[in-house]
């Protein structure tokens, strides 16, 4: 099965990365692949367990154990990484 190209942005970052992920990969794998481009790179390092993902135009975190296809992600969708709310308040993006 060929890879799904996706648009991925991340809280506190400034750009959108192109990330390709196998359709049968889990959402957790996508989070890991996407976070490796930003967390500890453009924004401070943090445990993966505090990183979640949602569609850019949705609020709900996608379930990490579902496959990306079952989570409703299609080729060229835009997904967004976000963090557990920092003690000082809400996520900035």
């Amino acid at each position, binding site marked *: 099965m060929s890879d799904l*190209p996706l*648009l991925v*942005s991340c809280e*506190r*970052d*400034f*750009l*959108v*990365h*192109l*990330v390709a992920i196998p359709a049968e990969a889990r959402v957790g794998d996508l989070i890991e692949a996407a976070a*490796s*481009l930003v967390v*500890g*790179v*453009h*924004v*401070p390092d943090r445990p993966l367990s505090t990183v979640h993902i949602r569609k*850019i*135009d949705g609020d709900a975190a996608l379930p990490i154990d579902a496959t990306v296809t079952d989570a409703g992600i299609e080729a*060229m*969708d*835009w997904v*967004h990484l976000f963090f557990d709310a920092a003690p000082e308040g809400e996520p*900035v*993006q």
Partner: protein
Amino acid sequence: MTLLQRSDWYDVARDTNWTPSFVSEADLFPPEMSDPFDMPKAAWAEYDEPYKVSYAEYVKVQREKDAGVYAVNTAAARTRFMEEAGQRWHSILKLHFGAVSLAESSSQISEGRMARFGMAPGMRNMATFGLLDEIRHGQTQLYFAHESLKHSPQFNFAHKLLGTQEWGAIMTRATLDDVFLGRDAVTTAIMLTFAFETGFTNMQFIGLAGDAAEAGDTSFSNLISSIQTDESRHAQIGAPLLKLMVKNGYKDEAQKAVDIGFWRTYRFFALLTGTVIDYFMPLEKRTSSFKEFMEEWIVGQFERTLLDMGLDLPWYWDFFLEDIESFHHGMHIGWWLYRDTVWFNVPAGVSPAERDWLESKYPGWNDSWGRLWSQIGENIRAGRTDLTVPKTLPVVCSFNNLPMVTDPSKPWAGKDQMLTYKGKKYYFQSHVEKWVFEQDPERYAAHQTLIDQFLAGRIQPPTYEGALNYMGLSPVERGKDAENFAWAFAGREPRTMAAE
């Protein structure tokens, strides 16, 4: 026999309109090349060009201008200056020559379109001189870039860039094709000479000539000033046209062309000028920030010109005024991170003193863009320069071809940035790009951005290195950090410097 004054014969002599007998009027001036609005002849008769020049006068003045440009460029002095000028100035020159030389040269086609298909003789006259101007602009800038080749092979991109698939080249070609080369004479006059040249480049060239003088680069300063005097003349082709359009009931058509042309060329301008003013220029040579430059020279002047003409400010004006505080910061950090993909060395421009300057000019900068640079600096100091090298491509706007960016302390606009058209998903830098796309989707839908080309399998191997080769960048041409990461260590204990 005494010679007549120009004013005694000009109006009669320039009036070269006649009724064609071998072909129809519509064949001589097809609407798609000339005037798609089919404005009445009486309206066109009102076209009154503000610059009245004869060919003999033009040639005499241009000859003097060229003599000035090349005379000052005594080779030895120039070589000495270039050897002493820092990397930052070299980068500004490489960026300028690459982005501008052939782009100016290609606007011969735009001037040619107006010279042949303009419905008013005065417009055709001015555009004929404009065409000759742009030949000169292409040639002189290529000459200077060529003279600089001995200092770095990256200067070769003055000639090479537009023939490559480098992302900036794709962006430049798409912009030129849309607003300058692929339009009728009326729309070209509005989008190129009014929105871009009157709106942006005229002032930009004055600013750049000043910066060059400040940096001690006399010959480049003279070159740019000399070009600017031509631009300020042929930039006035559009104004009399807009005036007659407003007066004769074509305001909506004129306004729409202004709104589209201004937005598309603003992005091009912000990328080139915003980054240079706020990051490339050595701190001690800076006179104002990009935002201050825009507010003082571009915004005020353009607002006055539009309103004087009976036009309105573009509908997105408030958004534009906010955008000049953020978009170019994103372009700059993008350039630095993706420095391998450009033909000049990119200065980070974020030493501690420069960060203070940025914070004073853009309050809140440290908490937004500065945070990203802090993390990057930490990685460099920890010896992890590998983390500053991208692993994948950024997604570019389907319309403007530039990486999609946001102020990192502000949310993305999400839905306002996306559109599905005939089953394909399009993503935009902002709702303004999306609006332009929606005005004429068939014009834009088939365009292949770098990302489209990548997804179509044209980049092989489909890796970051594969993309660099696809873009035509040989290892010696690819950009590096202009100061070998010294900025990350400035003001700190001396340590082993990272090397790039």
